[in-house]
């Protein structure tokens, strides 16, 4: 037995003994390695010092990893030293994670290399990156959208996922609360790009006859029906329209095109009208002004491919009495949305303003619309904001007849469907 171990050790030692590198090769390899790893550090250090002069570069500051003494003492005073040690350990773990994030975010090496690396992987090698998948014919897809469509049913219990995975309890809670205030709720999951353009991602879907949804989607709609919650299947609307109305999604962005937004708004408008709401305000007319906008999609931004030619679309800017459209806090319709609502409304998304879902819905209804849209976390962010507003005395639901709750359908699979919010009239 001893001989076996000695054999492995001997092999390793002998192996090192037979290393045969010429003088030039061994110096080249060693120098190349040292210059590469140390070069990245020196570059980062230099930039760190130039950007914010201080005696000690930030990336070499070990004190930032340590927990704050006062914080640990406070926990110790309140819960004892065992809890304080745990808190100190947790805090140190957080500081370490933050340090790594800062290091990578501030890295000049990463900044310099990423666009080239992504261009080579995607353009030259026809591949994808972590968050952006290359489609066909210049189309790009956001990874969670693909995961939503290809993954298991979102109504399958997933105990390992943090947060609440089932959307129904949250929607039911919201619906009941609004019902008590005599406000109608319309749930509108907005289909993701691969649902409507599956053939732009995989040839297997050429000739597809219907929008491709997550396996649980039909069951989800049935459960909404069972709970008496109104909903609009925008997937069916956009699928029908893609053949007749032109592209309903942007090729380089995760979101729908201006055509898609207008179609979505029209479908929502029709759904609201079908509810037979007794409006208290008269209808108003809006004007539409076509405007060309060029933008680089969010997928291209994620790839850092800044040199790409922008994509051009025509917005239908909405105005009333010559004034650009704006949400009306006293409107009878409240639209809760995410980035699908903000696109063409928030200039920071890179596709202009005045033509977002709220404006299009307002024009479709001929009525003012109030809107609350938060780009991320469509599963709870707006509900939380409404509940928080009520707590602070700003009741966003006051005077509303209809609430449209629109969110990217991928939220059904990956969102945190928190419950426990209260929407009672103050």
């Amino acid at each position, binding site marked *: *037995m*001893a001989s*076996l*171990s*000695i054999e*492995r*050790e001997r*092999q*390793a*030692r002998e*192996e*090192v003994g037979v*290393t*045969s*590198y*010429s003088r030039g*090769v*061994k*110096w*080249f*390899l*060693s120098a*190349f390695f*040292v210059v*590469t*790893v*140390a070069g*990245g550090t020196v570059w980062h250090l230099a930039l760190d010092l130039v950007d914010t002069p201080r005696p000690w570069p930030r*990336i*070499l500051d070990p004190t930032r990893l340590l927990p704050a003494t006062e914080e640990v003492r406070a926990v110790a005073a309140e819960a004892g030293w065992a809890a304080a*040690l*745990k808190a100190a*350990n947790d805090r*140190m773990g957080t500081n370490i994670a933050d340090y*790594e994030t800062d*290091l*990578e975010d501030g*890295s000049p*090496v*990463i900044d310099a*290399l990423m666009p080239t*690396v992504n261009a080579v992987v995607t353009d030259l*090698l*026809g*591949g*994808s990156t972590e968050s952006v*998948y*290359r*489609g066909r014919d210049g189309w790009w897809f956001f990874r969670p959208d*693909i995961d939503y*469509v*290809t*993954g*298991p*049913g979102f109504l399958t219990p997933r105990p390992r996922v943090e947060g609440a995975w089932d959307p129904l309890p949250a929607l039911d809670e919201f619906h009941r609360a609004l019902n008590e205030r005599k406000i109608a709720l319309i749930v509108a999951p907005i289909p993701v790009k*691969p649902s409507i353009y599956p053939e732009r991602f*995989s040839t297997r879907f050429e000739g597809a006859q219907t929008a*491709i*949804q*997550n396996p649980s989607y039909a069951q989800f709609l049935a459960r909404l029906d069972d709970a008496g919650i109104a909903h609009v299947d925008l997937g069916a609307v956009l699928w029908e329209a893609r053949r007749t109305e032109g592209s309903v999604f942007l090729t380089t962005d995760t979101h729908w095109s201006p055509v898609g937004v207008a179609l979505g708004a029209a479908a929502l408008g029709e759904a609201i009208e079908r509810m037979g709401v007794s409006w208290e305000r008269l209808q108003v007319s809006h004007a539409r002004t076509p405007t060309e906008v060029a933008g680089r999609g969010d997928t291209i931004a994620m790839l850092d491919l800044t040199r790409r030619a922008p994509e051009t679309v025509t917005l239908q800017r909405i105005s009333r009495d010559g004034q650009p459209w704006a949400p009306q806090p006293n409107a009878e319709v409240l639209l809760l949305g995410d980035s699908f609502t903000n696109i063409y409304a928030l200039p920071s998304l890179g596709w202009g303003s005045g033509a977002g879902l709220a404006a299009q819905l307002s024009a479709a209804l001929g009525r003012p619309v109030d809107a609350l849209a938060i780009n991320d976390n469509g599963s709870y962010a707006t509900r939380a904001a409404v509940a928080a507003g009520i707590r602070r005395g700003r009741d966003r639901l006051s005077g509303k007849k209809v609430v449209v709750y629109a969110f990217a359908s991928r939220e059904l699979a990956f969102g945190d469907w928190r419950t426990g919010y209260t929407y009672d009239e103050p």
Partner: protein
Amino acid sequence: MVFSSYVFVFVFLPAVLVAYYLAPRKLKHLLLTLFSYGFYGWANPAFAFLMLFSTAVDYRCGLIAGRRDAGDGTRRAALVTSIVTNLGLLGFFKYANFGIDNYNALVTALGGDHLQWETFFRITLPLGISFYTFQSMSYTIDVYRRHAEPVRNFVDFACYVALFPQLVAGPIVRFREIADQLAERGHSIANFARGVSFFAFGMAKKILIANPCGKIADVCFEAGSLTVVDAWYGIVAYSFQIYFDFSAYSDMAIGLGLMLGFAFPKNFDSPYLSQSITEFWRRWHLSLSSFLRDYLYIPLGGNRKGERRTYVNLMTVMLLGGLWHGALWNFVIWGAIHGVMLAVERRFEKDSLYRRLPAPAKMLLTFLIVTIAWVFFRAPTLGEALDYLGAMVGLGPQTAGGPMIAGLIYQPYYLLVMAVAAGVVWLAPQTWDYTRRMTWPKAAWAAAAFATALAVMMGQAFNPFIYFIF
């Protein structure tokens, strides 16, 4: 901390190398130990104290077990203390959750829901605990058996246990394999350059091959439905991923060791060239298989106690080897598949199952068996493993969106990576052989591979090595 991370390559590693080579000889081990504890504590600072505890116990037990004047009882008590401490730590941190979950499942199945044990916390698994407890424990056993002399300097022993290159995922370096090097080792530019070559190729294997193969496997294992072809493609991708991931780690560990003057033994020997499962285990994760052979199979009697006992021993070793990888029934089944195959091959005189087949067919058949067994290794639960196996024979569920994964997994980039992986697995020389004599073209190739891997690494998400969780 992960070798293939920005913080390791551009902050930790330069700092270690500068400090190590500037430090006087007497301080080198202390420095390495401190850096290694920093490396280990990076994931969870508290666990560094756990490793320190285990180290202190084994150091003390080693001193007692190695005393010439101590009686057998005292020496044996030291050995038992070391084994109980290490296995106790391993058992508590690695298997407590598993035990509780199985107990709860059992009482639920028997209708005793009220007997479930609700724990208010879930135990977090310290990284690499399976590796360093085995390594540390092997020292006490070797000293007890008089196969090694006890270490008189605590820092030297702590350095051996914590040595960052192989701390969290091996190779499991036994004390007697490295004792001489702890006492005396040389540093040369040739060894450093070879270490660079190992590290460069290891980095390239991890970033350029293992991670993209892992992406394919992840997509396939997370898909709601799979075609037969996609399912096979996905599991072959996983076979490549796990080999390149783990052997990359071993290459990088060996490379870092060489940069610091250590020569770690080989951990892989082209395992997918094996023509039987018996041969596979002579080529795969050598440090674990030799550990299990020397400290479990042979003490159980090995093949010296009759045919039936040999099969029992083989199964025991492989089942425990499976369980060593993780507290999941999937790992037990994976071990059982290999154990059964080893026993069957032994029963039919080793390679007779394959005897009549030509060598490529034997290799393919072995790869097929290993690959099917990987399904249990990769799937998160037993149910998901069975679903995946079902998909491999066309019995999986079908969903409308599932086939869309083809748009990703058959992209030219991933097809290229799979082809390169297959080429390296079946045609390319091992890193050991390739780096033995470096010519200028080889050196340029190593430099290019390293630079490319670093550049691609920066665009990849956090991708820890698979064996970190074991």
